[in-house]
Each structure stands twice: as C-alpha cells, then as structure tokens.
C-alpha cells in the first residue's frame, strides 16, 4: 500500500500539503509569532498593516495584520487548528453514530431498518448548512463542541447510508452464514465479521467528508454563526477580509483563502488516492 502511495505523485503532494498544515496547526502555540486569541496580546496600534515586503509592513507581521491587529500568519495557524479539530471531531462523532446506525439497519433489516433509514432521509432532506445554522441559532452558544454537534446532526447520514449498503452486501456471504451456524451471537457477528469487511468504503466516505466539513466550518464562520469573533477561523478571516477588498487591503482575504483552498485540495487528493486504492475495480482498471 505504501508503495502504491509513493508511486502516486498527486497523493504524495496532497499528503505533504496536509502534513504541513497539520504540523502548523499542532505547533501553532510554538511557532506563531503571536497568539491571536489572547486579547491581552493584541494592540489596535498594529491594525491593518500590510505584508512585510510592502511599504509600511512591520516585523513580526510577515503577512500583515487584520483590523484588530491580529497577525494574519498566526491567525491562519490558529484558524487551521480550529478547522482541523472541527473536521476530526465531526468525522469521529458523525462517523461513529452513523456507523452504528448503518450496522443496525443493514444487519437487522425490517422495522429497525425502516426507522433508521427514514429518519436518515428526513435529516438528509435538510441542507447541512441550513440545519447547522438553525441549531447554532437555537443554542445561543458558541464553541468548537457545539459546532461539531451541530454539523454531525445531519452529517451522520452519509456514514449510515454507506455502511448499510456495505452490510447488506456482506450479510449474504457464506462466511456470515457459517459464523451464525456455529452459534455466534448477533453482536459478535456484527463486530467480528460484518464490520471489518464493510469498513473500506467507510474510510473513503470519512476522507471525503473531512474536506467537506472543513469547507462547511468555513461557511458557517463566514456567516458569523460558527465561533466567537474573538477566535477567528479561516472562514471568519475571509469574512473580515471581504470588507476590505475594495479598499485595496487584499492581504486580509487572500492569505486565509489560499490556506483554506490548500487544505481542502490536500484532503481531496488523499481521499482520491484512498478511494482508488480501496476500490478494487478501479485499481484493476488502472493496472496496478
């Protein structure tokens, strides 16, 4: 698998980009010149400074500052932390819940299947963005955890659907009948035999979903319903920068925009590779 990976240049590129951002996010408190979330450390005197290579630029504000005197580079690093945390959180929460629901529905079928999948249909008929805005509006609270839950509320459906399909396919295999014949309990069959064989497609969904959630978090923050204004993530940085585009202060929007695009491209390249790797039919067609 590693050999396949190294032979695919786009996968390597994607993984490298992702690695850079993950490292940047993890090490933000160490490498960022400033903690943009620490109100005490900020000064209005530093507001709206251009990048360091332009006239009026000042060290240590490599990529300039925003209207509150936050260093753009530092805010991007801290913003990536938020974006990646939310994405991991959603994949974990929605993934686990969706997986359980999909397993139940697929394995037991009948009434349980009908209940789970119809409620999945209901949740999925709402746009995830709309649902998240609704939930965040009702909760009147802001924070990473709230954001994760709000997005997960509709996002679990992707996982449930995928896994249910996979379980239905696996369920009729001979080895399942064999396991049942020797008297294995339902739970044991699900977790020992059905789940491991249904997991590959789930991984692909998770990888794609990761990119989708990063964009979604950015959208919500852009609309101002994501996180508190004192903790801008990439989406909010873009929203702040939008006000200054026509005033010629491009650095407020361009750098966070590049960062957001790069992360999502990185995630998608890796997800693409994963899909090809896991789906045997595509692999065969590509002659690997």
């Amino acid at each position: 698998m590693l050999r396949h990976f190294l032979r695919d240049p786009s996968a390597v590129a994607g993984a490298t980009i992702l690695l850079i951002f993950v490292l940047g996010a993890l090490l933000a408190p160490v490498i960022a010149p400033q903690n943009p979330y620490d109100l005490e450390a900020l000064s209005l005197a530093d507001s709206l400074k251009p990048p360091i290579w332009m006239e009026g630029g000042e060290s240590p504000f490599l990529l300039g500052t925003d209207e509150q005197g936050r260093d753009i580079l530092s805010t991007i690093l801290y913003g990536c932390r938020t974006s990646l945390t939310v994405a991991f959180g959603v994949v974990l929460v929605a993934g686990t819940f969706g997986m359980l629901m999909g397993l139940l529905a697929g394995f037991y079928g009948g009434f349980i299947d009908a209940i789970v999948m119809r409620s999945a249909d209901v949740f999925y008929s709402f746009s995830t963005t709309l649902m998240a805005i609704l939930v965040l509006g009702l909760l009147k609270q802001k924070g990473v955890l709230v954001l994760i839950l709000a997005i997960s509320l509709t996002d679990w459906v992707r996982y449930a659907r995928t896994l249910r399909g996979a379980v239905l396919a696996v369920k009729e295999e001979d080895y399942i009948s064999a396991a049942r014949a020797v008297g294995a309990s339902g739970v044991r069959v699900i977790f020992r035999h059905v789940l491991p064989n249904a997991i590959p497609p789930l991984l692909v969904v998770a990888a794609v979903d990761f990119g989708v959630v990063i964009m979604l978090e950015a959208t919500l923050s852009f609309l101002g319903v994501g996180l508190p204004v004192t903790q801008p993530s990439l989406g909010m940085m873009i929203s702040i920068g939008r006000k200054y585009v026509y005033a010629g202060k491009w650095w407020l929007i361009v750098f966070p925009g590049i960062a957001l695009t790069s992360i999502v491209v990185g995630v998608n390249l890796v997800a693409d590779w994963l899909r090809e790797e896991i789906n045997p039919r595509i692999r065969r067609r590509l002659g690997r």
Partner: protein
Amino acid sequence: MRKLGLLLLVFGLSLGVAAGAQTIEKVVIGLSAPPRTMDPHGSDADSNLSIMSNIFDGLARRDVDGKLLPGLAVSWERVDAVTWRFRLRKGVKFHNGNDFTWEDVAFTFQRLKDPEVSEFLATGNLVKSVEPVDGDPWTIDIVTTRPVAWFVQNLHQIFIMDKESTEARSRGEVASYPIGTGPYKFVEWIRGDHLTLVANEDYWGGPPPVKKVIFKEIVDSFTRLAAIETGTVDIIQDIPLELFDRAKANPNLSIITRPARRGMFLGMKQTPDYPMHDVRVRKAIYMAINVQELIDKVMFGHASPAAQIADPPTVGYNPEIKRFPYDPEEAKRLLAEAGYPNGFSVTLKAPTDRYPRDEETAEAIAKQLAKVGIKVTLDAKPKAMYFPEVTHHDVELYYLGWFDGAYSAMRTFTKLVHSYDKERGYGLFNAGDISDKLLDYLIEQSDTIVDPELYVEWSQMTNRIAFEWKVVYIPLFYLEDSYAVYKPSGIKFTPRPDTWMTIVDVIQP
C-alpha cells in the same frame, strides 16, 4: 396636422424645461435601515419615523436645523404644569379627502396607549385627556398625568392619524396602507425591496417640489455603495467606513458628513451581585478604555469623543463634563482597591448589524479591558437577537447608542437612568438596573419645573452628577452621519440632525 402635433410637442417640451427648474421628477434613495411597518405608531425607530414624516404630520415639526416649528398645530402654550393648549390648523385634508379635526388628535393620543399597535406607550400613558376649550373645536387642551417639561418637544414624532379610516380598516391594512396629511401620498410598498410615494399636490405647506420618491432597501453597505457608484440610486445613507476613502475619490459622488446626534456608550449591570455595583469598578472600566484609539483605528476617524450621552443641541447637555483620562495603571489600582486585584470575568454583548463598526468596536473594547485584567467574553449577535436581551435586562456589559428625539437629556434619563418602574413608565431601557435615589429624585423633580432657565440648569446638574460622580454609563463617542449623492443627478441634499429622510426638508430643487 403633423406640423401642429410637432408644434405642440415642442411647446410641451419647453414647458417641461421651464417647470424643471422648480421641480424634480423622481428621486431614488438607498436606505440602510428600511421601515418595518407603515403604521406611524407601530415603530419608534428613527428608520421608521424617517419615512413616516413624509406621509404624516405631527402637531409640531422640526426643520433641518432641528428647530421646533408649527405643524398641524399653528401655536401652543403651557397653561399650567400639566396643561398644554394648542390652536389647530384649519382646512387640512387627509389623503382620502377627510377633514383634519380635533377628534383625530384625541383619537391619535388614545391609540398611543394601545400596546397592540403602539410603540409610543410611554407618551400615550402620559396623556390624561384631549378636549376642546370652551366648545371651540380649533383650540384644544392636552392634559398630562404628571408634569412633563419636554412634552411639546416630542410632538414632531407623534403622527396624527385619520380617526374614520383607521377605525374602519383592519389593523393589517392600516399597517400596510398609510393615510396621512403629509406632503407625500402612499403608492406601493414591496417589503424588502422598495417603497414608492408621490407628491400630495394639495399639501397645506404647498405642493412639494420632488414629484416622486422611491426608497430602495439596500441593507448591505457594500451593495449600497455599489448602487450609487453606478447611479442606480441618487442618494445613500451610511457610507461603509472601510470604503470611505474610495467613495471620496469617486468624482461622481459628493460626500456629505455631519456629527451624528447618536452617542455610543457602554452600559453596566449594577445590581449588588455584580462587580460593577462598585463605582470604583465602573470608573476603572472607564479609564481602561482608550477611546481615541477606538476612534482612530476602529472608526477610522469618523467619530468624536463623548463625555456624556447627550449631544450639544440637547437641552441638558453640559459642556463642563469631562472624560476621565485613559489611564490603565489607575484603572488597575481602582480595581485592586475595590477588591479585584486580579480583575474579573464579564460578558460584553453587542449587536453586529446595528451601528457602524459595532462588532469591531466591542471586540476592540474587550481587548483594551483584557490589558487591565478584566476577562471579557464577547457575545456579538444580530440586532434581532440582541435588542430583546437588552429590553429584558439580560446583560452584564453592553454596547448601545442613543439620541433623544425630543432633545431632552432628562427624557433620556427617565428611560436610561431612573430606577426601573414599569407602572410609572420609568427606566424602561435601564438594562443595567441602575438604582440611585438621588438621581431618581432629580429626574422626577425636573418635570415639575416650569421656569425654562431653571430647567436647563437642573438638567445640566443632574447630567454632571450622573456621569462624573455616579458613572452610571461609560460614554464613548458620537458617530458621524454620512451620505453620498450621485452628482450627475443634480440634487442638492442637506441632511437632518435626526437622519430623517423628510424629502421636503432635505432635498432642494
């Protein structure tokens, strides 16, 4: 025959040109804050009154300088502490042809008391009776329930409605099809898009020179600026501060600014269970805020420092009140003295879409307070969520703006400073639950003063005590009103101090 037609056409054109010197066919205005209702009592927001002032008249009116002038009443006098005598204008007709009579005035003040239709309950509940004097239907006495020194100063925003058509129509119809006595008649209102008015040629003040007015709702400030840059609209309110320089550089736009009447301030919860109960803490917050930095860096210079909430033209404005200096060291010392050497935690609430740069200002204040150890959680939200929380007193620190429509500092104080007393209509916006016996007494007594000079001095004294000694609010700065006019339209525009778009006042042909 064709020649004759041509001749008529030329004749007609020349007539049009001749008339064009005095009249303007059409003016399109981009509104930053659109009206919520067409019921003149349904909203006391200036964005609503601004529009209503074109369709309706009050007993009095104000001109572009804010001076109080006769409206539907030609003159008035204060007979005693609670009685005001008005002589009504004769021969005025409503847009539906009904005559204006004293019964419309009585009906209007009665309607103000109805919480189902009126946001002017405080004014409505002040009025005890409206009666003709000695059987003369053109002279009436309005008697108030308690002495109110500023009663007549408020009458330019109390619009007189037609008794007959208002009673005959459903509440929904009244709120969507206004019938007034004003210089403009209602044509159509497409909510969220535009409102069209046409000149009332029979207006008692003479036919208005602008024949048709279209108010377009363009809430997003960047879209609004784009609309005037392309000439889609002739005038806009509120140029976005971020793009001010760009608007100024546009040769097609003339930019008009004037100091706004609105003073911005911080309110504080002052019940005994909050640190801000202690005047030293309130003073510390005051001294920890660098207002000049806010003006320079957040407002880009488009504001001026305030030491009180009232603006200079307001009765009771006291030029002797000085700001406490910005002094974070002294602030820390005061906090330590009050028993908070390590500061405390507090939530600062602010709207995100009400005042220019509101959210940004609140964020900057949070940052400045952090430097003296006060940990601020910023809770910024859309005005639709924010204002109900303020009216329910669900606040700790909050960012608000205020100007007094009746130009009276004591009227502001009855709402913002006097202890909350729903029954008597005091302290309705006192979200911080300020309760100071001395101030309550001074505010209540001010209304019994009939001598105008004593009233001014009393108001100024009360104002000074409230801001310099009691520190009931932290005044920050006065905003700046800004307008852009599309030059090729050839319109001359003079803004009103209250930002109302009263077309007969603000546009000169």
